[in-house]
Each structure stands twice: as C-alpha cells, then as structure tokens.
C-alpha cells in the first residue's frame, strides 16, 4: 500500500464515499494503478483514465464501462490468478483491495491489439443465426466447428486448480425479508422492524443507501445520506434486524424461500477461519422487493464505443466514487432523469457540450436548470452516431421526430458535437427479476414505457423504483407502507405510524418511448442492443423478417439477453424493437422468462461445505479399523465401506479372491455382514404382518427358528430378500439386503401407518446396533465351540435355528443360516463389542487356518450356489417364478404383489428364467452383461435369448461360470448359446445348465 494519490487524473479533489487517506495498488492487464478504499475496480479504472476494458463476444469490438452495478454488460474481467482466478467478474461490483489483480477477457494477444477483431470487419457475413445457417452441414462436423467457435467466442477462463477457499451455508428465518437497501428498502425495513418483526435487509452494495449514494437528493431539507445514516443507526440497534451488505438475493423460490449470496469480508485476503462466500437460505413470511430500477440505453450508431455510458451510472461514479467519467460530456436522453447527471457533471467542472433530447418538450424544471447552467439543450434531436476510432471524440446529432426517426432535413441539419463521453438515458426498467421469479405478473405501463409489477401475490410486495415509482418521495412512501403491511400480514400489531420525511417534488415531463434512432440508410452503423452478446437492431429486424415472432424464439435465435448479464440492459429494448418490427403492441409481445439467479452464483457457494470427503457421510462397521489394519481393499456399497478382499503380500486381486473362496470351502472363513439391514418387530400382529409382506408362509414360524423370505413390490416383481427370526412370542428380527435396508423400512412403515394401522406392530431399525459376522465353512463349528458358552452341535443348534449365548464373554445371538452354502453361523453382538468378538473368533480359528474374506469371495460362492441377489438378477423385472422361487409362494392368503402375479403378462410362458451358464471350452471367460444369441454370425439386430446377469471365476470348478436370465430357460438346460459382448470384443459359446453349480442338494449345510 502506498501513500498519497499522485495519479488518478479523473479523480476529483473532494466528496464521494471513498477514503482518500489510504491508497491501494492494483494491477490491470499487467499495469499498476492506484485507487482508494470504497472504490470498485470500475471506479478505480475510470479514475486512472482506463477506458478500454475488454473485447466484445462476437466481433471483438473495443468496449468500456457502461454501468455502475449488476447490469454491467461490458466490463467483465478475469479476476485474480492461479487457483483463485474467476472469470466474467463485473468490474462494477468488485470491491477494490490492495494488490488486486485483474485482466481483460476475450482478446489475444492483448486488449489493444486483438486478432479476433477481424470478425468486426467481416460483420456483414456474421448476421443473427449465422452459426445455425453455416455449420448445419455436414452434421458430423458440428463437433469440430463447435470447439473452434467456442474458443473464438469464449468469455473468461475457469480455474484449472481446486478452489482453495471455503464456502459456508447458513439457514435463516425471518418475518420480513427486504431485498434492496435503497430509499424504499430502508423505509420498508424500518417500518416493519418498528412493529417488532424479525427483518433481514439485503443489499448488493458495500453500504446501504442504493441510488441515494450516487445522486444529490435531499430529504428533510438535508443531504439524503443523513436520513440514510439515521435509518441505518436505528436498524442496527434493533436486535431482531439483520442487515447483509455485499449480498445478493440471487433467487426467490416457492413458499418465500430466498437464496442470498454473501461476499464475506471487504475483498482481498480473508482471515483463515472465514469462508469466502456464504450462501443463505432464508425463509421469510413476507418479502419486499425493493431492488430499484435499471437504466436502459437507446440504440444509435456505434453506441458501443468506449465513452458511451448510462447517464445515471456516470452520476454515480461522480457522486459516490468522486471520479469524472470523461473530460467533456454530451447527454442523449428521452426523459428528464439524465439532466441531473448533466448538471452534476457540470457543477463538478466537466463541460457539457449539449443535452440532446428526442422530446420536443423536456421537463420545465430540468430545462430551466440547464439554461441557468448555460448548457445547450437540443430538443427534438438525437445522436445518430458516436464518432471516434479507439475512443469517443464527438457525436453526430440531427433533428428527429417524436419516435426518434430522422426528419427529412436531418442530413442538412446534422452537426458534430464534441465530447469524449456520451451519457445516454433511454428511461428506467424496474428490476422486477425477483418478483417475476416468484411468478409475479407484469403489466406494460405506457406512461413509464416499461413493464411494472401487476396484481398482488401472496407474501410478496414490490416497493419503490422496482414497483415503477421513479420519484424519491413515492419510493419512501411505498417503502413505509409495504413494510407496515408486510409486518401486519406476518402477524404483528401495527407499530407507531411513520410519517414520510419531507422531500421536494419536481414537476417532470413524461418519457418519449424511443428505443432506437432511425435514419436514412446512408447512416448505416451498428446499433447495439445487447453489447455483451453483440446483438444489434439489424439482428432483431432480420430475425423478425425470418419469422421469429415470439420473444422467446427471438432470444434463442439472436442470443439477445443470453450473456452472463442475462440482458439486464438489453431485454426490454430488444422486445420493444421486435414489437415494432412485427407491428404488434409491446404488451402482446411480452417478456422472456426471468430465471434465477439474478447474478451468476459461483459453484463453490452452491456446493458449500459439501465437497471432497464431506459430499456424503461414510458408514463404517464396528470392525472397520481391524479390516484396514489387515490390508482390506474396500468397496463402496451405498455409504458403507466394505472389505472387498484382504490382500496378502503381492498377490493379484483374483488370486486373493480365489484364496479366500477355497479357504472357506475347505476350512473356515469369517466375513463382516454388519451392513445387512436389521429391523426389530414387536407386537401381537407381527406374524400376520409378515405374512402379508412376504410371499412365504410366516404364520407357522416357531419361536427359536429362522426362515428365508422374499418380498415383492405391488407389481409382482421381487423387491428384497432376507431372513426372519422369531425371537419370542411377539418379537421378530428381520434382515434385509444392504442396498434396500432404507427402502424396506420405509415401505413397512407405510403399510403399518397408512394401509393397516389396526395391526399391532412396532418397527425399529437396529442395523447399526448390532455388529454381524458370518463364520462359514466345514470347520466353523469347531471354531465356534471354542468361544461359545453353549453347545453349538447340530442337535442343539440345527440349520435355520438361533440361540442366545455368550461369545468371548459377550452376549450374542447366533443364527445358523448360510449364504455361502457352507455350514455357517451368523453372529450378532452389540456393535461396541464387534471388534473384540471378531478378534476372538480370528484367534480361535488360527489352528483351523481361519481366513477372513470379503464381498468378492461372498459373491463367487453365491454364484456357485445359484443364489440370486437384488440388482443383477432381481433387477425389478423378475417375478419369484422367474428366479425359480415359485415353490415359496404360499397357497393361501393375500400378500403385497400377489394379485399382480396372476396378470397374464407375468404368467406368460416365454418369460426369462434364471439359469446357469458354463463355457463349452473350459478356459474361456464369460463377459459380464453379455447378450445371449443362438448364432454368433447374425448381424444385429438379432433375437436376444437372454443376458448374463452375474459372472465369476469359480476356483472350485476351475472355470468361469455365470447366472443368466434366458427366455424359457429352465426348459433349455443343455442347449448351447453364444454370449456376445461387442463392447469387450468377447464371444463365448456357453451351455445352459442348472443355476446351482456347487452342492446342489445342500448336503454341506446340514452337518
């Protein structure tokens, strides 16, 4: 930071809301400049005389600063560098800080000499719809064209490194949310807050005041900013009021929810504990939209030259930022407001060459003030063209009629007016964006020549300029009334009546609705409507001639309003020009849809803290630490991390899985099955309830026994499977698959709460209460008997039974159920004891060579046993009979899905059925997901007989095996088919076999 400001040639000596005691150094396009706290990047650039800020999107024309707020279309910069670089940032809204670095966009090699500017010379060849018309054929080449077009026309560059900053999300509730802290918003917040209502006041500026910061208005016969200060002081003392500055209400959603993006800090480096931005989700009972109005331009020739600026914005730069936007001004207007800009600049010492007014009758008061200041006023005139090569030096001015059409004597009466600044005002458009996002309707006001909010909608009001009130006194009156009414609707008793402050009213003349200056073809220069997307009046007229009569089509064809500024400046002018071109009134043409967000929101703010490891919670089983220590390779199943296999030494994935499978089949293994869903059921009607949700009979399940069960969806397709154990007279435990645990619970709750509330059943999800592990293999009993305090022999604990006991000193439930097809015990212990019990089992199994195994080995063994799983086989299209479970379906009674099983389509004979596949040549693998066809030489499309659902290498059989769904599969055992997988370039001849490859009689289970 350096002292003093010897530079800044356009800075005035005093006034403005900047702090001249401190100076910031900043860099733009590699050059060093100075500014002050309180500056934006835009005001600091103007202070330093920097006019050329960037190049336009399509024609690469030179562009300067046009506006002072969110509506800025041209002054978009690449802000910052490295990982923190941000593209398309509006210089008008970047708070200046020491060391700020910014650069121009869309120019190469530099903003002063840009090769892309050749497009401007070729502009005749690049009309609206040029890309559509030119690059349509051949279609295949579009991919190539698109890349080149996008590179030529791009805006800024996205950062390529990870964002180093943090972003926060905050939720807030309030009675009244006020968007905009200008005069109307301040008045609304004050009158609402005085009732005791909780108020949140949001403004995108660095301080409250809105337009009052940029003009010279007087309230109560004093500087208006004194009134702003008084209101601010009162608001900040009220505990129920929150004011957010540097914050944008980006969107209004249903039911009065607003998203607000807050820039934390005043720009520059932040304290490490602070997020860079905070995304607020605000729920408000009542919302007041006091977002002000946006000045619009008038289209005239070369109106994009650097030096052409909105009149109100130039006034803001002068009064708020103490910078003069030029050395000599020309004012071009169709309304009274621009006269104030002219008078302010004149007073500050900038000579005004002329006020060019398309109206024959300007407002009497402003005209008198102009004559008093000896400013030349040219009523009934228009600026035909801005003159100057790199920068503005004069305007060509000629007489026009009331519609802005050059009169027949225009050419002989045209004159050149000197000036390096054209201040233009085409009137004001209420910022109705938020209102419209909330589905508020608009109506065209012919007196104001713009769209204003129409019809009240519940919970949302507009006040001030956003409501079409363009005079300060009306703004404050409307704000006070809106605040009081909103608080009342939010349930607050009327507070003390607030009298509006004294404000002198000015007699003004109405606007002349001129959108464009029309003149003979001799004056054919580009008249820009949307400078950001380089859309001209000629483009709109061409689109109209080509039949684009809907404003939505016009927008898409010409790209009008499709830039990052979303046409804040351009849209109303564009649709008025379309209306003129097709000869329809403006209200009939209507507006395009206003969509959120109001200004671009960085993705970081939307993601908030939910990035990296915080995107989703991670679920670990009780034995996770042990798995990690023993070289488990984890796999994600939903949010769970499960051991896929445990690697020993440098063995390959497949070697590890094969080793684990063989160890279980030939000895004993231990697997963590804690992730299975577990639901505890209690109540007198559990048996009846289970009977209605499973296809099997559950009325006959005895205490102490387990039963396998299958659930259907109501459409008859298999939904889930698991076991049910009867723990006591009125107490059951259900298991579900890992994947469906949540869905099954919700479905059971639905049935009990909505369909069968009379059933006495209570459900509790106990998935995470119990650690579960399966001890499986021929040596399982030997291992278990060493740690269990009961007899676990076949007589005491037979297949499909359970017992309570202590294992390694811990209370446990032992279920003799099997997924692997081996003698198997599933052991449940309270989760906190999971790891000690697991370790005790591993220790007890040492002498039998116990092997821990993961989900892969489990998967191989279930394929060997022909067990379907939810997903590959039960894919939402298979019935119990398709999966070979027809025998489980009980004969009597209704259950979820039963009626659908009787539908003709589900009983059709050609349905796909679960079968096994074995390769004809034992060494060949079978491709996952392969299609099954009869003749491999047939070219697609050919009849698909079925598909491979699951496949694996079976170390027990020494070959690849697969489960498949094959049309009429059970009747085709022994038939040969081809498993074709064009994607993996594999085709294998296979033979259809029974789905159970290993121990088909289940002898190994009952030992």
């Amino acid at each position, binding site marked *: 930071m350096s002292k003093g400001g010897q530079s800044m040639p356009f800075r005035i000596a005093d006034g403005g809301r900047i702090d001249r005691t401190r100076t910031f150094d900043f860099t733009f396009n590699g050059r060093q400049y100075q500014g002050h706290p309180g500056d934006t990047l835009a005001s600091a650039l103007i202070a330093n005389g920097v006019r050329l800020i960037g190049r336009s999107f399509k024609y690469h024309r030179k562009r300067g600063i046009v506006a002072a707020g969110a509506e800025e279309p041209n002054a978009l910069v690449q802000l910052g560098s490295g990982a923190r670089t941000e593209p398309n940032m509006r210089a008008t809204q970047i708070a200046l800080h020491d060391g700020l670095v910014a650069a121009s966009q869309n120019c190469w090699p530099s903003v002063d000499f840009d090769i892309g500017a050749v497009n401007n010379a070729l502009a005749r060849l690049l009309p609206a719809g040029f890309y559509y018309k030119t690059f349509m054929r051949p279609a295949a080449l579009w991919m190539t064209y698109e890349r080149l077009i996008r590179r030529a026309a791009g805006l800024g560059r996205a950062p390529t490194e990870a964002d180093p900053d943090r972003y926060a999300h905050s939720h807030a509730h309030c009675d009244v949310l006020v968007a905009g802290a200008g005069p109307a918003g301040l008045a609304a917040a004050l009158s609402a807050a005085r009732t005791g209502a909780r108020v949140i006041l949001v403004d995108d500026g660095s301080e409250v005041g809105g337009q009052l910061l940029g003009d010279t208005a007087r309230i109560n016969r004093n500087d208006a900013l004194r009134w702003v200060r008084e209101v601010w002081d009162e608001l900040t003392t009220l505990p129920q009021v929150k004011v957010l500055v540097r914050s944008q209400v980006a969107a209004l959603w249903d*039911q009065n929810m607003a998203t607000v993006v807050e820039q934390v800090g005043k720009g520059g480096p932040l304290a490490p504990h602070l997020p860079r931005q905070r995304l607020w989700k605000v729920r408000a009972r009542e919302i007041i939209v006091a977002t002000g109005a946006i000045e619009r331009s008038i289209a005239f020739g070369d109106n994009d030259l650097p030096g052409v600026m909105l009149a109100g914005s130039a006034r803001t730069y002068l009064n708020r930022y103490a910078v003069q936007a030029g050395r000599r001004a020309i004012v071009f207007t169709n309304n009274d407001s621009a006269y104030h800009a002219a008078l302010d600049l004149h007073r500050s010492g900038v000579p005004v060459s002329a006020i060019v007014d398309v109206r024959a009758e300007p407002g009497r008061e402003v005209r008198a003030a102009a004559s008093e200041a000896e400013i030349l006023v040219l009523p009934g005139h228009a600026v035909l063209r801005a003159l100057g090569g790199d920068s503005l030096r004069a305007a060509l001015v000629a007489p026009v009629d009331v519609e802005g059409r050059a009169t027949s004597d225009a050419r002989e009466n045209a004159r050149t007016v000197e000036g390096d600044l054209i201040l233009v005002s085409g009137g004001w458009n209420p910022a109705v964006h938020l209102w419209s996002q909330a589905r508020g309707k608009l109506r065209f006001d012919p007196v104001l020549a713009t769209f204003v909010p129409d019809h009240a909608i519940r919970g949302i009001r507009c006040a001030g300029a956003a409501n079409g009130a363009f005079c300060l006194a009306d703004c404050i009156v409307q704000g006070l009334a809106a605040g009081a009414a909103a608080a009342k609707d939010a349930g607050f008793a009327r507070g003390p009546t607030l009298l509006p402050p004294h404000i002198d009213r000015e007699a003004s003349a109405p606007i002349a609705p001129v959108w464009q200056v029309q003149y003979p073809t001799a004056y054919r220069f580009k008249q820009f409507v949307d400078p950001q997307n380089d859309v001209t009046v000629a483009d709109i007229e061409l689109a109209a001639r080509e039949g684009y009569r809907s404003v939505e089509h016009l927008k898409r064809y010409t790209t009008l309003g499709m830039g990052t500024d979303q046409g804040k400046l351009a849209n109303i002018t564009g649709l008025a020009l379309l209306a003129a071109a097709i000869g329809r009134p403006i209200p009939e043409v209507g507006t395009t849809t206003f969509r959120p967000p109001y200004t671009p929101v960085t993705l970081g703010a939307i993601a908030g803290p939910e990035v990296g490891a915080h995107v989703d919670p991670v679920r670990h089983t009780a034995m996770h630490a042990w798995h990690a220590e023993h070289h488990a390779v984890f796999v994600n199943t939903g949010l769970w991390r499960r051991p896929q296999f445990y690697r020993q030494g440098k063995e390959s994935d497949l070697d590890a899985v094969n080793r684990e499978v063989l160890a279980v089949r030939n000895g004993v293994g231990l697997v963590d099955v804690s992730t299975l869903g577990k639901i505890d059921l209690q109540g007198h009607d559990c048996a009846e309830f289970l009977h209605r949700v499973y296809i099997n009979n559950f009325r006959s399940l005895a205490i102490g026994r387990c039963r396998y069960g299958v659930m259907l969806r*109501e459409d008859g397709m298999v939904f889930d499977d698991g076991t049910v154990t009867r723990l006591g007279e009125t107490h059951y435990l259900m298991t579900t698959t890992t994947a469906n645990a949540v869905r099954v619970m919700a479905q059971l709750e639905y049935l009990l*709460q909505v369909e069968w509330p009379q059933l006495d059943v209570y459900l509790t999800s106990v998935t995470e209460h119990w650690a579960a592990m399966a001890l499986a293999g021929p040596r399982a009993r030997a291992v278990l008997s060493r740690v269990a305090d009961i007899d676990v022999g076949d007589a005491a604990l037979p297949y499909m039974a359970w017992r309570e006991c202590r294992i390694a000193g811990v209370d446990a439930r032992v279920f003799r159920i099997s997924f692997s097809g081996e003698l198997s015990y599933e052991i449940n212990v309270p989760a906190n004891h999971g790891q000690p019990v697991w370790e005790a089992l591993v220790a007890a199994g040492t002498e039998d060579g116990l092997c821990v195994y993961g989900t892969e080995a489990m998967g191989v063994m279930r394929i060997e046993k022909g067990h379907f799983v939810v997903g590959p086989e039960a894919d939402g299209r298979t019935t119990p009979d398709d999966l070979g479970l027809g025998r489980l379906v009980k004969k009597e009674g209704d259950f979820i899905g039963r*009626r659908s099983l009787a539908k003709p389509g589900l009983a059709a004979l050609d349905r796909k059925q679960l079968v096994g596949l074995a390769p004809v040549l034992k060494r060949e693998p079978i491709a996952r997901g392969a299609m099954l066809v009869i003749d491999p030489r047939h070219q697609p499309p050919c009849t698909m007989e079925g598909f491979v659902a699951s496949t694996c290498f079976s170390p027990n059989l020494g070959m690849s095996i697969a489960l498949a769904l094959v049309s009429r599969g059970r009747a085709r055992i022994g038939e040969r088919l081809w498993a074709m997988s064009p994607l993996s370039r594999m085709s294998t001849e296979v033979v259809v076999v029974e789905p159970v490859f290993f121990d088909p009689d289940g002898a190994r289970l009952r030992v």
Partner: protein
Amino acid sequence: MLLIHCPFCGPRDQTEYSYGGDATLQRPTDPAALSDQAWGEYLNVRDNPAGLHDEMWQHAQGCRRWIGVRRNTLTHEIVSTWSPDAAEAA
C-alpha cells in the same frame, strides 16, 4: 424449496421428507376380487391434476411418520397436512 408442516414435528424443510405419491389411493381389501383391468388401474393409473393434490410424504429424516399433504401443483402452496391416523379417526 417447500416448507412442510409435519403434524408431529411442526414446519420442516422439504429435504427432511420423501415423497410417496397419491394419498387418495387405498389398497383394495380383496385384490383377488378385482379384474385385471381394475387392478392395473390401481397399480398404474394416476391423476395428474393442475391444482390441489392430496399426496403422501414421509418425514424420513424426522419422526418417520407418513403424513398427508394437500398441495397445489401449480403454486406449490400447501393447504393442509394431516396424520393418516387422524383421518381414520375422523
């Protein structure tokens, strides 16, 4: 985003709920008695009204209760919510 009044917990954010479809639908007491056509309609045919719609939501991240919600599909206004138990009693 919607704010849904749970009859048990009070007004809660939509993100706490999961949607459960038409609330006027009642599972037939004797599905076997229905024709294929009638069962098919119960399974698959739903009104898509522009306006008020009674629907089920589960307060999945809250009290786990299924509740009825009368919502205007055009404006997302929620007119009322209720507990299906209470509806039974009424």
